[in-house]
């Protein structure tokens, strides 16, 4: 997974919880497949990492009916964790995507605390750069959301995963909580190496012609530029309360957006929904960050992290 760092990206190289990243720009789980789908548009090895599709122990069919809908400067999805299961991932997907030389971060969801442990252990293999615990996906009825809104449950998931893997463990926080800081601290205390935030906000759309919910699962996860203000606020709050690095995400679609997250306290960022509008957007974001660093006479992204000035 090592590869030659491009000359131009000297400034962008970073290291987060032991994960060496050519750039601090990753792609968010569920929006970028396994990376390979974007190989025509993106130099995958230039990304800080690809957070692959949510993976579960057993294959999952996901939700029926309409799965996405557009909202003002956003979209809602209720994919419902469709995935072929961890066995297929390990046997078929992982060997296939190794050629791209990218950091593969596996996003996992479990129905029980134990399942997170089992998944973490199964994925403790070469070719996996880190494990991201999805405790916040709002689309799965059993389990999922409970872990994401209860600090004790989230902490238990982190501990279980840490017990079963030597890979860095990332806990992905849900924004659908009263107090994101308490959630973050609980997960840090439980041993999370990195926190990523935010997952989607829970939303709903009603089709006024059919008088039914648009989405097959009634509600869906809201993502895209519309949620950026909430994401920046939460990253800023969490950054002040914890010492572990943060991967910030939520509505990032330009380098300016990314800079906002760095200033707020994110050590790296992930791009989700914006990949749909422009499959090449991550590369443009890398270039833009590099220019910004140059203009501000900074030689590394670290010099920007958390540097928002509050009077």
């Amino acid at each position, binding site marked *: 997974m090592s590869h030659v760092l491009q000359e131009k990206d000297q400034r962008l190289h970073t290291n987060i919880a032991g994960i060496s990243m050519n750039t601090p720009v990753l792609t968010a789980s*569920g*929006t*970028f*497949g*396994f990376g390979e*789908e*974007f*190989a*025509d*548009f993106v*130099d*995958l090895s230039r990304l800080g990492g690809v957070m692959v*599709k949510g993976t579960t122990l057993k294959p999952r*069919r*996901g939700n029926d009916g*309409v*799965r*996405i*809908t*557009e909202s003002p*400067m*956003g*979209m809602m*999805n209720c*994919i419902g964790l*469709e995935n072929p299961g961890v066995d297929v991932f390990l046997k078929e997907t992982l060997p296939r995507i190794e050629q*791209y030389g990218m950091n593969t971060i596996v996003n996992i969801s479990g129905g029980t605390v134990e399942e997170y442990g089992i998944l973490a252990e199964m994925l403790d293999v070469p070719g996996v750069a880190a494990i991201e615990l999805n405790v916040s996906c709002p689309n799965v009825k059993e389990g999922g959301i409970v872990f994401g809104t209860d600090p004790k449950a989230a902490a238990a998931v982190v501990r279980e995963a840490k017990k079963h893997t030597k890979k860095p463990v990332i806990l992905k926080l849900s924004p659908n909580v009263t107090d994101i800081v308490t959630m973050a601290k609980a997960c840090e205390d439980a041993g999370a190496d990195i926190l990523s935030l935010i997952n989607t906000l829970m939303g709903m759309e009603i089709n006024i012609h059919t008088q039914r919910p648009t989405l097959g699962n009634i509600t869906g996860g809201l993502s*895209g*530029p519309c949620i950026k203000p909430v994401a920046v606020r939460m990253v800023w709050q969490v950054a002040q309360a914890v010492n572990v690095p943060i991967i910030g995400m939520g509505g990032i679609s330009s380098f300016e957006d990314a800079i906002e997250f760095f200033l707020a306290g994110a050590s790296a960022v992930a791009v989700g*929904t914006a*990949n*749909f*509008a*422009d*499959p*090449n957007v991550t590369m443009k974001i890398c270039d833009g960050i590099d220019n910004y660093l140059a203009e501000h006479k900074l030689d590394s992204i670290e010099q920007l992290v958390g540097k928002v000035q509050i009077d």
Partner: protein
Amino acid sequence: MALPKKKVAIDAKVISQQALYDHVFKLVVEAPEVAERAEAGQFVQLRILNGSCLLRRPVGIAAADKDKGTVAFIYRVVGKGTTALSQLKAGDTINVLGPLGHGFDIKAKKPLIVGGGMGLSPVLFYAAAMEGKADVLMGGKTAGELFWQDLFTGKVQDIFCTTDDGSLGTKGFTTTLLPELLAKKDYDLVVACGPEIMMKGIAKIAKEHGVRCQVSLEKRMGCGLGACLSCSIDTTDGQRKKVCKDGPVFEAGEVFA
């Protein structure tokens, strides 16, 4: 990764925008990289940059001219994205992502195209690709809706029409006339595109007549690249497939029981 790219995302110049019928437009853009790669039945994702559309909009490829480097789309205005699309003028720019998905089988010897509504757009490309070997059966509510006749003329051998009100061709649906055509002629493939209910009926009739049938499906799309799983469908063997990547063209038996 120096593999040849199968898909591109490019800013394409609008060559022309033409109203074909009530709310139906034909848009021609200059996109040589797409024209070069395009196969009949594939689609593109158009990025409509007026601030109000976050997601791209999928449209089938109605024609591709490799020499001129142009690609054509025929679409109906139904919502805000297609409304904004219809306001583009020659000289404007639109970002085209494609070509996407898999097309129809062009190795058929004597295919019958069956289409209704906007479904007639991707099969127009197929008719052109088959270089006059295909026949087309088109259905519409009234004669007016079958403005498509002019577009297919010269690209197919025979054109059969059905209208709900009998104002042109056979009164009824495409499914009314189809059994007769399949019985009479020696088709080795039925290529269907239109409302799902129509395609289901056609697939059933084709099966009864032992003729292979391909259908082109529609599902709301996010990425168009097989990454987001927005466009999942069930296959008859219990699998999930993606319309954007595994389709939009499927063997009828794969998707309709």
